[in-house]
């Protein structure tokens, strides 16, 4: 007699988990966005500026609390051209998401890139500026997009 085997399927409910995550850096960041400012933190030991501003220095491993404002301009680091949405459906107009480095800061911030005609002409190292929403509410979405200068 052949051995009986069965296939078992079941859903996995991820909403039953709860985590403690440090939200300090984002709190500071969105507080700044409400006033159309880019806020971060600076390490008093090595001078590294983090945006969003972490509560500790990655390099020196010490607590940092010096809040600094950086100009809403910087350079384009890496980027990708999105031709589909999160479900894999093609989008009508491809869009670029990117990481940028604000002047004087060492950390990378992700967002959408605007101000280009043909994405083949977009290059790393191009200059960008932040475009805020007209009405800011203190949310990440206040940072509407990065505009090529």
């Amino acid at each position, binding site marked *: 007699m052949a051995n009986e085997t069965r*296939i078992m399927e079941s859903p*996995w409910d*991820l909403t039953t*988990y709860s*985590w403690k*995550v*440090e*939200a300090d*850096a*984002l709190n500071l*960041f*969105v507080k700044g966005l409400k006033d159309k400012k880019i806020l*971060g933190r600076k390490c008093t030991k090595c001078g*590294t500026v*983090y*945006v*969003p*501003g*972490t509560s500790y220095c*990655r390099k020196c491993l010490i607590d940092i609390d010096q809040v600094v404002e950086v100009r809403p301009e910087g350079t384009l*680091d*890496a*980027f*990708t*051209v*999105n*031709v*589909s*949405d*999160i479900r894999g459906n093609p*989008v*009508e107009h*491809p*869009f*670029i*998401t*990117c*990481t940028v480095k604000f002047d004087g800061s*060492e*950390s*990378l*911030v*992700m*967002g*959408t890139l605007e101000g280009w005609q043909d*994405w083949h002409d977009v*290059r*790393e190292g191009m200059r960008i500026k932040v475009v805020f929403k007209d009405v800011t*509410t*203190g*949310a*990440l*979405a206040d940072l*509407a*997009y990065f505009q090529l200068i």
Partner: protein
Amino acid sequence: MKRNVAIISVGYNGRFVSKRPDVNIPELIEPAVTNALGKTKLKPDDIQAYVVGNMHTFEGVNGPHLWASDHFNGSGKPVMRVATGGTTGASVFQAAYYHVASGMYDVVMAIGWEKQDEGDSQVGLVGIVLPEAFTLFQFGPEMNTERGGVGGLGGGGSTGGASYQAMSYLSRAHAGIEHIDRIAALMRSNAAKNPYAHLQQPGCTEADIAKTPIITYPLRFGHTCPTSCGAVAMILVSESKAKKFGLTDRVAWVKGLGSGTSDPTTGNFVEGQITDPAEQHMCKVVAKKVYTMAGIKDPTKEIQVAEVYSGFSHQDLMWPERLGLVKEGKSPEMLDKGAFAIGGEMPINPSGGVTSTNAIGASAMVRVSEAALQVMGLAEGGHQIPMKVENAVAHGWGGLFQFVTVTLVGRTPVKS
């Protein structure tokens, strides 16, 4: 004082494929174990300890070794499970090495596997970043997925994350998407010469790859790894046991190994990411350390072949540079002159690599097992490189782009 360790046998469960509904995890592993033992005169009872591992949560089973142990004769012996994400296989191997090098055991088996048809790998991946993603959601990010926003940042799953690294690499190396197409085609045609590889495409060309749709530029469907089911088992023994077994001829000696971590990159928004994902500084640091350990002065001349862990094809160009096998930014040029092919001067992934076969928990160990087979001269089906292999390097990669392992195997042990 550490002891020399030899790899005396490698076993696969068979050809890696996308679906194996006919077996469960222990049944998937068992043929790999039997094959590894079958190539030696060892009996199952000769194995003193096991180090095993697979990716966490991908199959939705948290401790598969708990019910797989007695199927590989682990009952009554030490069994250690190691799970370190993408580098799992390499970490398993390195832990098995430490078992022997430390003098604790003389004969140890390392097993790595993944059975991806049992779960949803992307859900498993999401589990890694879920706390951060949920935090981000609480701060009101742009939700319009049509125009960037959260959908754009997360679009394409792991491919989306890797595309930033790909773009950054292309910019640094002054290369184009055609180079990624070309290396992807080389990997798939190499895979056709490896009887255990998953995606075997004999004579695959750049044009074949270029036909596949873009997921997020510059990465196409043809540049991404498959999700595979498969298992690999390796037997590691001490130098004295190798001599006792009369096994000093066709073995691969572990000459150097190491691992390293930088800060998590790509999308690490909450913590302020400071490292470009194409930088991979730790890969350079670890490689240098490993070569020193192995007594290698010029890796470009003294290493004949490399097996690198590349979930996405641009990495097959990036890692050889970071491992010091090729000058920085020169991989596209080396590829174009045929240096990376099986008969070239620095063959990369004669096995077809991870973009052809990716059973996650096995993948980083398969890099070591394939490097070992190249040293032993036992790579089957035409993927043995024609050059005599004195040294081969195996590389593993994982985490949020920041974990790296490097293992160097060779024909002669390091004098202790």
